[in-house]
């Protein structure tokens, strides 16, 4: 895959020398604190800690995230305020939340206003704070808090006030607009479909907007699942049934658009090439089937409500939770494990079925006469057999004849072993798969570190994979030492490619010294006359090379 366009003035990638780095630092666990000098004016120091986007590890991202969450929470509070059954009894709570939100937004506004002279965008202006005050984002920030203070002086209609409070959502633009700009920059000259692909699939073109899109979908998954759970509580669904319907419709609209976007843009993925077959393969993909299951109940229930009672399908809306597995590799590993171990799992399932049928048949044979109402036929005895073999033992059906009890003891003991096989199999295969993937990561890491350094992309990959595969600091340190030793040996054997040596001036000097020393040794050890005679006979050395040799020889 091609790399995205990068701005011409982009800073060169920072390289980390693996000889001088510790695993903790690589994993971002040490020195995670920002490099902010305390020996600077308070205002600059405060700016660096809170608002400077160029200092990794400071609070800027956290502040943005929490303010974003607060804005979304405000939006929900505003929606819930329209439900009298919820608003009236909790009026005070809503008010406190509003006051809390305003306090945070005011603090944020005041902080930005105070620190404006440190901001790159405003510091060159004649009056940075005035420039900040009239900047679009500052106006939005002011609009978000102004209605609260205005109502203290001017009587504002509640509906108008609520509308004005809705303006708080505009604050999200502070996060979205830069992401959109970055997205446009990354996707300059790309097709519409490629842009859709960049938005919904993880790719180098997605940037921050793709993360925002994922978060947006994730938030809606959680909201809609919470709604399904709350709907089952009579007292809640009784009060806000209509709101649940509206919420579900919005969620379905969002998930439907996401589904269509994925199906349409999947052909940009190398593994889904082909307008029809590629999309068909994507539609068969587990994650996409889950996406479909997340929206299908809504369409089926409403469309077929007059013909069929499909209310039970509402429970399947909980399948939306599975959408989150897209962002978690554990499910992928589990699927791989099941696919890999399928022959053994199916064999053990076959034995389990055999045992269940045998136990049910024996139960029927030995107990039917004594308890005809409980062991009335073999299919009905299957329930008892499964409960016994799986060691659940509800006790609602149990054998009473001596032979029946003896048979149950034997079968239950066998059942413990047989029924445990799939669980043990899956557990060991899961561990094995993880081990394999860790070994693969280690191999990739070795390859990445062979050149002696790691760039930012490689470090990012390392951190993501190390987190996913639970690579410990000790393991990474051992790996670093191993690579270090390997490189040392390689240096000793001089098998490092010359261009790699040339990239590193210190090593290039060392290499030059080593070569000179070898020539000197050669000059000392070889017979000069025979050397020159052989060189002339084979015409292997040019006159310049011959002159250099004689110069070295004479300097000894």
């Amino acid at each position, binding site marked *: 895959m091609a790399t995205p366009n990068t701005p011409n003035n982009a800073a060169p990638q920072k390289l980390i020398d693996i000889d001088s780095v510790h695993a903790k630092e690589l994993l971002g666990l040490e020195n995670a604190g920002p490099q902010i000098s305390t020996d600077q004016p308070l205002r600059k120091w405060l700016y660096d800690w809170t608002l400077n986007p160029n200092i990794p590890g400071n609070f800027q991202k956290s502040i943005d995230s929490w303010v974003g969450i607060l804005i979304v929470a405000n939006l929900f509070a505003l929606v819930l305020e329209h439900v009298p059954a919820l608003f009236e009894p909790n009026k005070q709570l809503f008010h406190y939340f509003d006051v809390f939100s305003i306090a945070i937004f005011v603090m944020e506004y005041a902080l930005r206003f105070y620190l404006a002279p440190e901001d790159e965008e405003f510091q060159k202006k004649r009056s940075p704070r005035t420039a900040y005050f009239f900047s679009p984002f500052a106006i939005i920030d002011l609009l978000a808090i102004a209605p609260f203070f205005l109502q203290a002086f001017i009587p504002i209609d509640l509906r108008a006030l609520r509308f004005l409070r809705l303006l708080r959502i505009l604050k999200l633009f502070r996060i979205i607009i830069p992401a959109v700009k970055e997205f446009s920059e990354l996707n300059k000259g790309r097709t519409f479909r490629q842009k859709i692909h960049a938005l919904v699939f993880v790719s180098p073109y997605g940037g921050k907007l793709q993360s925002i899109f994922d978060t947006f979908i994730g938030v809606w998954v959680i909201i809609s699942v919470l709604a399904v759970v709350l709907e089952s509580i009579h007292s809640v669904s*009784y009060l806000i049934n209509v709101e649940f319907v509206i919420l579900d*419709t919005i969620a379905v609209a969002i998930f439907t658009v996401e589904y269509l976007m994925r199906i349409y843009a999947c052909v940009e993925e190398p593994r889904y090439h082909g307008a029809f077959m590629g999309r068909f393969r994507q539609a068969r993909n587990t994650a996409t089937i889950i996406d479909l299951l997340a929206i299908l109940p*809504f369409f089926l229930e409403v469309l077929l409500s007059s013909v069929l009672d499909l209310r039970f399908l509402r429970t399947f809306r909980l399948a939306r939770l599975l959408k989150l597995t897209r962002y978690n590799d554990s499910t992928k590993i589990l699927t791989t494990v099941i696919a890999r171990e399928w022959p053994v799992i199916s064999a053990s399932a076959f034995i389990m079925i055999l045992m269940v049928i045998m136990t049910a048949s024996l139960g029927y044979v030995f107990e039917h006469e004594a308890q005809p109402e409980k062991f009335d036929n073999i299919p009905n005895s299957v329930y008892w057999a499964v409960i016994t073999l799986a060691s659940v033992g509800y006790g609602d059906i149990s054998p009473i004849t001596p032979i029946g009890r003896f048979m149950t003891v034997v079968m239950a003991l066998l059942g413990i072993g047989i029924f445990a096989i799939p669980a043990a199999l899956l557990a060991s295969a899961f561990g094995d798969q993880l081990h394999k993937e860790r070994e693969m990561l280690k191999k990739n890491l070795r390859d990445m570190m062979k050149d002696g350094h790691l760039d930012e992309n490689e470090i990012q990959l390392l951190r993501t994979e190390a987190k996913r595969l639970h690579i410990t600091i000790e393991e990474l340190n051992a790996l670093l030492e191993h690579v270090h030793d390997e490189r040392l040996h390689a240096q000793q054997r001089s098998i490092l490619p010359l261009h790699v040596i040339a990239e590193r001036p210190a090593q290039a000097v060392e290499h030059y010294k080593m070569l000179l020393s070898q020539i000197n040794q050669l000059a000392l050890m070889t017979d000069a006359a025979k050397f020159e005679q052989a060189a002339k006979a084979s015409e292997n050395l040019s006159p310049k090379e011959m002159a250099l040799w004689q110069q070295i020889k004479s300097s000894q």
Partner: protein
Amino acid sequence: MTKTPAHPGTSPTFADWIFISIVIGALCLVAYLGEIAYEHAQQTEKSKRNGEAMAAWLTEASAQRFEANYKIPACAGGGDAKTSLWGACLEHLLANDFKDMRNPFKGVAPQFIEQCNPADKSLTGEIVLLKMTPTPAGSAVSSINSKLVAEDSIDQKLQLSIGICDKGAYLVKIADFEF
């Protein structure tokens, strides 16, 4: 003046427009189905309001109907068990206080039924009014519910339960109260 042609790669293609149309179509379908679901939910809400109004009236009446000279003799308590019947009280209610009550799904006066049945969609919007008869101490259930019929005597205090059948003819319980 020459016009710079748009970059061939960036402007939407025919396939892109088809995709955009499908997305718009899907959104319209979701909106349409959402509107239907919303209508159903609103009708269920109106049914709930019917049930709530009935429950509120009966609860309020329970405090007064045992007083002498109660203004609605048909619903008064403490009289003769043979003449003080639910049928007369209900007839009075439907003719006076609840004469405008409508089943929002059908547009006619709601029926009082014993139970909702999802298999019978004709029950949507009807009111389930049940009489709760306490069972002897130690029983598995505290009370047995049965339909309050016209012949039931209302001379004594009654424990009632009210609910409605929603769009799917599932029961939505509203309240248990004393009448």
